């Protein structure tokens, strides 16, 4: 195996060395080999990303399905989307509400847990594992588990409520409570973020705290003036990634509610899936994809733009 791989690796190098019968300069050889190494990504990028994006952008101006071919209709898809399609607006609303609920709560909870686990406590490893484990599992298994947890009559959540004498809501069967149920469920997967913040916290140099204490700062002031500013770069990066992720929520609504009840959990990707892969209206689905992309882009830019007001980078000079 080792010998074979060595030969396989050596072969393209040999070809390059002898290319065209004359000797190439070392610089040129390196460049050709570089493009050889890059070729998987380059081809993939041109076909699956750049090519696909151009095609998708073009497709969004067509009425198109797999069977009848396509017809150019200009901006008709986008016009319909924004003015004649209450379902798109609904999906926009649902996805935005979910993100606004899930992302800040996740961030807050993750930070809180990380702060607690960052104290010198016994069995830290065990606790860390227990908090982190749920985030390893994802997708369909989690959706199935939680639709059972949220079962209004026999689920564990409402059983818990009934202990303290509250009749729990109908959760995924209720227009009002289906989305909050998704948010609660997302909190179960807080472990990934928690671990990141934990790493961030451990990266804060201890002399900062020592200096602050000598100056008479209490724990709360240390937290406010050292921990939070030092954590902002991590929080910032995480916020962006979480928003991008939360806008693409699909599995939960597909498995647990099928977008219902009464479209209360119709997310953008679920809507795109219906248009594209159930009705095979590729042009229209492409238009939805571009709306989604645009929203994510704007959101990312907004967070980046706002970062100068609240993100603190060590080594950066104050104005």
């Amino acid at each position: 195996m080792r010998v074979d791989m060595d030969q396989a690796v050596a072969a393209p190098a040999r070809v390059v060395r002898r290319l065209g019968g004359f000797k190439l300069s070392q610089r040129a050889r390196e460049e050709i080999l570089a493009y050889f190494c890059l070729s998987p990504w380059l081809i993939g990028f041109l076909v699956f990303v750049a090519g696909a994006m151009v095609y998708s952008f073009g497709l969004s101006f067509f009425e198109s399905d797999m069977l009848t071919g396509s017809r150019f209709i200009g901006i008709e898809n986008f016009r319909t989307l924004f003015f004649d399609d209450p379902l798109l607006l609904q999906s926009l609303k649902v996805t935005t509400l979910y993100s606004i609920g899930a992302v800040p709560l996740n961030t807050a909870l993750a930070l809180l847990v990380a702060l607690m686990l960052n104290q010198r406590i016994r069995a830290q490893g065990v606790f860390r594992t227990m908090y982190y484990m749920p985030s390893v599992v994802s997708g369909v298994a989690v959706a199935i588990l939680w639709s059972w947890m949220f079962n209004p009559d026999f689920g564990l959540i409402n059983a818990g409520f009934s202990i303290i004498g509250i009749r729990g809501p109908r959760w995924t069967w209720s227009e009002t409570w289906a989305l909050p149920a998704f948010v609660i469920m997302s909190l179960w997967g807080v472990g990934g973020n928690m671990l990141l913040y934990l790493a961030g916290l451990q990266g804060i140099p201890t002399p900062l705290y020592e200096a602050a204490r000598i100056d008479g700062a209490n724990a709360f002031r240390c937290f406010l003036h050292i921990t939070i500013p030092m954590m902002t770069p991590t929080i910032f990066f995480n916020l962006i990634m979480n928003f991008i992720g939360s806008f693409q929520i699909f599995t939960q609504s597909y498995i647990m509610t099928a977008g219902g009840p009464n479209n209360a959990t119709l997310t953008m990707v679920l809507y795109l899936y219906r248009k594209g892969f159930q009705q095979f209206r590729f042009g229209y689905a492409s238009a939805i994809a571009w709306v989604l992309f645009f929203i994510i882009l704007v959101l990312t830019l907004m967070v980046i733009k706002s970062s100068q007001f609240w993100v603190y980078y060590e080594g950066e000079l104050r104005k």
Partner: protein
Amino acid sequence: MNVRDLLGRNRAADLPRQELGITQLLLLLERGVARVLLYLIVAAGAIFFSIPFAWMLSTSVKPSYQIFVMPPVWIPEKFIWSNFVKPWSYLPWLTYYKNTCILVANGVIATLVSSSIVAYAFARLRFRGRAIMFLLVLSTMMLPMHVTLIPQYVLFARLKWVNTLKPLIIPFWFGSAFNIFLLRQFFMTIHPELDDAAKIDGCGILGIFWRIILPLAKPALAVVAIFEYTYQWNDFFGPLIYLNSPKLFTVSLGLQSMQTRTEIQVSHTMAMTVISIIPVLALFFLAQQRFIQGIVLTGIKG
């Protein structure tokens, strides 16, 4: 923030002796109470996070008459282990697992091979357009997959690949932006002097990649492999779109089809869900350090 720190600090600050009296004692007491409270909250939270797992396990071994009861039963009267066996007879789970294993194995190998070689070019080789191409890699990391989804589907449909495993196998051989980025960052930390030494010993450019970079980058490669493994194991959207015939279904699709069929017992579905998460949890426990390292290294959950 613990007691010893506090005392140490006071000594260091050389406080007058009398202040170490009653105030200090009260402070210690306060610390103690805070500590107990901290343990209580952390433990309660950890239990809360584990309850869904316990509930799933409990449901999976229940007899059917103990499932739909209120208040819920935690420990069933009888343990019905056959819940774990019966679903294999009415759904082709062996096929689902086989298909999933194919996709997982392919995904891990394909990603490791393609992403590492591309990352090497970005980390070590000089070529025109390197900066701009790397910028492209970074920007595709942020691109939601749904933008390119439909053209890819159309392409695969033209190639007659829909309803085969090919659309879930071949694209992974072109490297993924995220893994390229991760590996490139790691390769950059390997000291270039090692390359020079190898070069003097007669190693070519690809030889350096094979003999120096890859062996030294094993931790990062493991992280990439673990991420890809969990991603492939949990993936639902890809199989949902590309696979129609049940003999091509993956575990995710199998679970979903159980969920939609109301005649199937909840305990059966739960039992199969339990089985389906074992491979991921097992990997997590085997490679916990790597998992955590991966999260910290990348800033993204797997």
